[in-house]
């Protein structure tokens, strides 16, 4: 059911990923951060999140861009659950209408 190659690959993937989860934590947990580094840590989470979704903005599809714009506007105003519902429904509708 699990080939040797597959077992080796996923075990090494797991090891690589767990190392990324620990490296930054272990490095910083031994440091006392100065004011400047603390401010960098404050904006860092947003930098990571916007980076992860950046490829979504690369599209020439009008429906896709419109859905994204609706999602951004909803996220500025509404709670998590409302935003998710508005976003999924409008994206689904726009894809059916314009796709």
């Amino acid at each position, binding site marked *: 059911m699990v080939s040797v190659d597959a077992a080796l690959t996923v075990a090494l993937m797991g090891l690589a990923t767990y190392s990324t989860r620990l490296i*930054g934590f272990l490095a910083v947990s031994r440091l006392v951060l100065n004011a400047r580094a603390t401010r960098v840590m404050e904006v860092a989470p947003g930098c990571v999140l916007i980076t992860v979704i950046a490829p979504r903005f690369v599209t020439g599809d009008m429906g896709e861009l419109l859905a994204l714009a609706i*999602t951004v506007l909803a996220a*500025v105003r509404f709670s998590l659950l409302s935003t998710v519902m508005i976003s999924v429904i409008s994206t689904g509708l726009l894809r059916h209408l314009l796709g």
Partner: protein
Amino acid sequence: MHSLSTRTLMHSGSAVETRRWGELKRGGKHALPVIIGLVPLALVLGAQASQKGMSIAEVSLMTALNYAGGSEFAAVELWSSSPDIALIVAMTFLINSRHIVMGATLAPLLKHLPYRKTVPALFFMCDESWAMGLTDARSSSRPLSFSFHYYLGVALLLWFNWVAFTSVGALIGPALTDIRAWGFDMVFPAVFLVLMRGMWRGRSSALPWVTSLLVALGAWLWLPQGWYVPAGATGGLLVAYLSGGER
């Protein structure tokens, strides 16, 4: 006197247990909107993996041990009967390099906890559990009040959900129609944008965030697969560091 103090101790012990359980449940409840998006994504990943020749057990093993969706989609993309192990592992590290920054931001908040608790808990850190734990800590009135059990509630539920539904996806693979058509893949931008709203710190956030967005866009268009993640994240951090002297 003796019996009184013993009773007080026992009472406060169970109060701590009750509070921890309450925090676990609160985390689990907050994770539910995220699961709406994770379930279809997990089904798609499982289905694609089975089409590439991975068995159900292999899919479960990958999502349980690696537990990082972006890198798993990349691995499935590169998968074959004799996978190029070095390439897949290198790609996994690159895409997940953002965890290095994420772990660093948690470190000051987890200082009061021993490594025997934090090191295992970090295995379950994903974009959502990390961001929700941080947002919860920052919205609290007390400074540095990271709720470890709230984080665990989010993280453990999301992990279990991910492993379970990627496996179901591998099982029913061919029966799945195109889930993307229903718009569920837009859940992640939605969740991330709401979390970013909570992280907004006025104009000092704007420049680094816009930099990250632009660098990531450029890297996505012009660099090899995977590089946009470390490029975008470090671009924003560099600007944050360089402009940090003002204020």
